[in-house]
Structures are given as structure tokens and as C-alpha cells.
């Protein structure tokens, strides 16, 4: 995978113009970005720090001395005719990205894998071109030209679309935690190109194709899986896979060859003559004494300033709340879910394991069903905490709690207490009443009772269902089960 992550900085990589997502066309462009003659690049310190932070978070070796190069190609949105990048000695090399995904037969086992990071380099972004096919012209907006990018090149250690999507998701979480990139693929802040090849076990690597135009994690998985199938099909039919660039069409789920690329490009790499090497220092003492502190990037300081990474967060959740790694994976994977969970646990006396079930299954299920994010949930952590407290106090049964949750979702203005009172959902604790209902059910279903006495215990569940229907789910299931077992023995 080749990932281009737009560095979250105020200004661009080599010029002092602002970085903003939407702005009037060509309003965030300086003379350097427009490649007017006589302009020179001036490196942004924040971009260097961002690249170093990302390199440290991915366990990379930071090159103390890295060099800038020019990569030449002609395209209208690259006004200079070249892009300043780091091809010979990038700022960070040889890292590892450890990621997990839920696999196994029921998709609830956490499988952890890792992919090697070949290098991380700083480079410039190009402008945006809008193709006007009707009038046979292209409109160029240079607002994005010159914005700092981190190009992360991963080794081909992944074997399917799901692994690639999980790796990219983990990378997104890391970059968001560091604050170096916001990682929204749909806004173009994180661009992923996949290089796919197939080969039989034991054979050398096959010819690879590059797949571009992927705008979400799900589409990444779809594109890669389609491309794998396509290449296998081509080879099975006796053909050969061409080394080409293909574009992913998300409507059909297919990859199509791109028209504009002619064969292998020769980028004529050349050292950037206007920029001396970029030096990063280990400790403040190793920096040259006469240089101002704002002019040096010190690894020790950057390392000390690293925030809590997702990996560490998951371990912390497992240790402090005694939940399974799979649970903490889901918590960290969904934006805002960890904070929601921690807020509920703080306010309720129910144990974290119980809360996890509610948060990961009930709440998350409803959010996904309605395509909402955690911040848009109609049920707040406080409301859920109240509900769980009522259940813990024994005022409602667990099945009623689920009903009340659905009600809270639908009509969030009411509190749990109000709903329980209105619909008379309080727990039926009158044992004589329950006995009476159980007896009625047992009497009206003699065949089932016979089956239970004969050894088929599963029919008991059916009788329980009938009792619950009678009591509108208000009876304590444990009590009902024990009474029924007693009566049918």
C-alpha cells in the first residue's frame, strides 16, 4: 500500500500560505506555489516534527540526515513541472505497523498482524484539476498545491482486502491520536493506492498492478479483493497480467484500466539544489550550540511529547476494566465509543463487563443500523447509566431494560423512570402471581411438559417465552426458570 497522508499544519510544506479544506479557488496560493520564477522553498518546521512523530509512533529508524529530490513529470496541476520529495534518503525507514482485525468463524476473535513500513518521506501535494469534458478543458485550482504530505510505503505483507482495510484503519487511528493527520479518506486527507499481485505458493512474486481512486476503507477491501480475483482469472485463462495502473469504480466494484498513463514513467530524479540536507538531532546537547532552538528538531523532545497511541489505549482499557481484548478493539475502533463507555462505567454501579455488552452490542448495533456516529446517539451515557442502575436495583428485568432502551432511542425526551411508570414495566416481584402464571402455562401445554419430563430441556425455553409474554417481560427470568423447572420436574 502507498499511503499519502496530508499533514495537519497551518501552512504548507515549503511556503507560508494557509492549508484549508474549502476556500475560493486559488486564494490560498503564494508565488512559490504558483511556481513563479525567482521563488524558493522554505521548509516548515511543523511538517518535519509531524513526520518524525509518525516515524517514532511506527517504530521507524529516523534518518538523522535526509535529503530532498525533484521528481519530474508534466501535468497541469503541477505548475513547476516537478515535485519536491525525498527519494534517496527519506526521513524515516524500516518501521512496523501492528494492526488487528476481528476474524475467526464468528468474527469475534482478535487476530493481530503486522506490516513492515518501508519508508516515510515528506513531499509536496499537487493542485486539483476539474475536468470539463464538454468544453475539452481542465480547470486548475492550486489551493492544494504545495501542502505537506507524508508518503508511507508499506511492504507487501498483507494478503487480502480485509487485512489492508484493517491496517489502514489502524494507521488512521494512530495519525489521529498523534494529531499529524485527520485521516478522513473521503476528504482526501488520507489517500491509499493499492499494489496487487498474485502468485502460487513457492513461486516468485507476480506482476503487480496499481489500483487508484479509492476513497474509503470498505472500498479499499472491495477493490483489492476484486483485483485479486481478476488477476487469478487472467492467469487461469493462460493470459498474463499487465503492469498497469487501474482505477476503481465504486459503483460496479470493478477496476478499470486508466487511459492517461503511458507505460513506465521515468521521473528523472535529481537532487533539489535549493535545499541543504535536513538534520535531526538526538538530544539537545548534540545540536550545534550557536543555533537557535527553533531551528533544531530534537528526537528526544519529540519522543517525550508523543501522546497515548491506540495500542497503549487498548491495553490500558483491558487492564483497568478487565474486559477482553476484542472488546477494547471495538471500543477504540469506533470514534468516541471509548469515552462513552468510560462515562457510563463512572456513573453506574453495574460492572464494566455488563456495560461492555450494552455498549458494544445494543448501542453500536443501533448506531450502525441507523448509520449514526457515537456523537449523534440519542441515548446519552447518563441515560444508559440510569437505566443500568434501575436494572441493578432490581426494579426492572433485563428484557424490560432492552425494551426501555429502544423507547429511549425513539423518544429521547423522557427518562427511563418515566417510561417504566407510563408503560407499567416495573418488575413483577409478587411470587404468587408468577406461580399462578407459570401454573397456567404448564396446564395449557401438557405436551411440552411431557417432552421436558422426557428429557428435552430446550422446550423449557418455549414455556419461559410464554410466561414472559403473559407478564409482558416484567418477570425476573431467573425466578421464572426455577419455578418452571420445579413444576415440570
Amino acid at each position, binding site marked *: 500500500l502507498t499511503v499519502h497522508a496530508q499533514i495537519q499544519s497551518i501552512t504548507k510544506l515549503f511556503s*507560508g500560505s494557509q492549508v484549508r479544506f474549502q476556500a475560493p479557488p486559488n486564494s490560498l496560493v503564494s508565488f512559490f506555489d504558483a511556481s513563479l520564477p525567482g521563488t524558493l522553498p522554505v521548509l516548515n518546521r511543523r511538517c518535519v516534527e509531524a513526520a518524525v512523530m509518525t516515524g517514532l509512533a511506527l517504530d521507524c529508524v529516523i534518518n538523522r540526515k535526509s535529503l530532498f529530490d525533484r521528481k519530474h513529470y508534466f501535468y497541469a496541476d503541477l505548475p513547476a513541472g516537478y515535485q519536491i520529495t525525498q527519494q534517496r534518503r527519506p526521513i524515516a525507514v524500516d518501521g512496523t505497523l501492528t494492526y488487528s482485525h476481528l476474524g475467526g468463524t464468528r468474527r469475534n476473535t482478535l487476530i493481530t498482524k503486522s506490516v513492515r513500513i518501508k519508508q516515510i518521506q515528506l513531499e509536496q501535494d499537487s493542485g486539483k484539476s476539474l475536468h470539463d469534458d464538454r468544453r475539452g478543458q481542465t480547470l486548475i485550482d492550486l489551493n492544494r498545491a504545495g501542502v505537506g504530505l507524508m508518503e508511507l510505503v508499506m511492504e507487501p505483507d498483507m494478503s487480502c482486502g480485509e487485512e489492508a482495510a484493517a491496517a489502514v484503519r489502524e494507521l488512521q487511528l494512530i495519525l489521529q491520536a498523534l494529531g499529524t493527520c485527520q485521516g478522513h479518506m473521503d476528504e482526501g486527507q488520507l489517500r491509499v493506492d493499492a499494489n496487487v499481485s498474485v502468485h502460487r505458493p513457492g513461486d516468485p512474486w507476480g506482476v503487480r498492478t496499481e489500483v487508484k481512486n479509492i476513497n474509503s476503507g470498505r472500498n479499499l477491501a472491495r477493490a483489492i479483493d476484486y483485483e485479486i480475483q481478476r488477476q487469478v482469472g487472467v492467469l487461469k485463462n493462460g493470459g498474463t497480467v499487465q503492469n498497469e495502473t487501474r482505477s476503481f469504480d465504486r459503483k460496479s466494484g470493478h477496476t478499470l484500466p486508466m487511459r492517461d498513463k503511458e507505460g513506465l514513467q521515468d521521473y528523472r530524479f535529481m537532487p533539489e539544489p535549493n535545499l541543504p540536507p535536513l538534520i535531526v538531532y538526538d538530544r539537545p546537547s548534540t545540536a550545534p550550540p550557536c543555533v537557535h532552538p527553533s531551528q533544531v528538531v530534537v528526537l528526544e523532545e519529540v519522543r517525550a511529547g508523543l501522546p497515548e497511541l491506540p495500542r497503549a489505549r487498548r491495553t490500558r482499557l483491558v487492564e483497568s476494566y478487565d474486559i477482553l481484548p476484542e472488546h477494547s478493539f471495538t471500543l477504540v475502533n469506533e470514534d468516541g465509543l471509548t469515552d462513552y463507555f468510560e462515562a457510563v462505567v463512572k456513573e453506574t454501579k453495574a460492572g464494566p463487563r455488563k456495560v461492555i455488552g450494552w455498549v458494544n452490542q445494543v448501542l453500536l448495533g443501533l448506531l450502525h443500523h441507523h448509520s449514526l456516529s457515537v456523537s449523534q446517539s440519542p441515548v446519552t451515557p447518563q441515560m444508559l447509566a440510569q437505566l443500568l442502575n434501575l436494572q441493578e436495583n432490581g426494579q426492572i428485568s433485563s428484557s424490560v431494560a432492552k425494551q426501555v432502551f429502544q423507547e429511549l432511542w425513539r423518544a429521547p425526551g423522557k427518562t427511563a423512570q418515566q417510561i417504566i411508570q407510563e408503560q407499567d414495566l416495573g418488575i413483577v416481584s409478587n411470587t404468587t402471581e408468577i406461580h399462578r402464571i407459570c401454573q397456567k402455562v404448564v396446564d395449557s401445554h401438557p405436551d411440552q411438559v411431557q417432552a421436558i419430563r422426557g428429557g428435552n430441556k430446550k422446550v423449557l425455553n418455549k414455556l419461559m417465552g410464554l410466561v414472559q409474554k403473559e407478564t409482558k417481560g416484567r418477570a425476573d427470568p431467573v425466578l421464572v426458570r426455577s419455578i418452571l423447572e420445579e413444576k415440570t420436574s
Partner: protein
Amino acid sequence: MSVVNYARTLQKVILNIGPRCYHRWVTTASVALRIRDSKQNFRCRLWCGLLTPVHYQYSTEGNTSKAKQVPADLVDKLERLALVDFPNQEGLVCLKKAIRFADQLHVVDTEGVDPMDSVLENRALYLREDVVAEGDCADRLLQLSKDTVEEYFVAPPGNIPLPGREEC
């Protein structure tokens, strides 16, 4: 053929020859690039003549053992990559001379010497603070372009394919 383009090609050819050679010749080519105004007025042969005597102390063309022929495909590729035009036989002769001239670099012994990119390598790279200082000059930039549509620059669609050798 313009002087600038010739100098660029020379630069490219030299840089492609090997990373372990000194790039002193690049400085000459860079000087040529800066004389943009006079690009139309010089003929290619004149520049060939001007450059060769400057480095006269090195061995002349006879010494190099590998006198390569420049295949037509390579010329085509160079033309496309650098958007350079070798319109006639004169241009090709110039190119061949330039390549043979650059081959003299192999004579220099660079054993144990680190390559240099520029003479400014031991200067400190200036790091700018992350504050907005430029931009917001769309009107001035758009004035420079012949064609604009609603604050966008106008360009032809995609890349114009260069005509092939046969079509010229």
C-alpha cells in the same frame, strides 16, 4: 533548438551517468539556465564550442572507449520526458557530442569520496515557523494566465500526446 533546453538535456544526461561523479559540470549548465532571455539567439553548435574548451585539460573524445550510438527510440524518449525538440540532424550531432563530452567523467577517480549535491551542503536548513504569511493574491496570479474561467486556471485536458516521429 533553444539553449535552455540543450543545457537541461546536458544536465540530465550528466546526472544519469553516475551518482559517484562530481557534478561540477552541472554548475555550468545551471548558469546556462539562468540566461533565459538570450535563449533564442544562440545556435547549438556555438554552445558546443564554448563548453568544450573550458574543460580542455581533460582527455579529448578520442580517449573514451565507449562511443555509444544514440538509438532513435532513446531520442524520442528524451524528447518526451524533457519536452525538448531535436528537429534536425544538427541537433542529434550535438547530442552525441554532449554525451561523449560527459563520458569524460568516467576518467575521474572518485574512490572513497562521498558524492556532493551542491556547494551549500554544510549550511543549516532554515526551518520556518508554522504561521500564515502568504496567499490571498488570486487576482494577481490569475492576471498572469491567458485563459481563466471563474478564478480557475484553464489547461488543456489531460496531457497532450506528442506527435510520433513519423508524424513530424
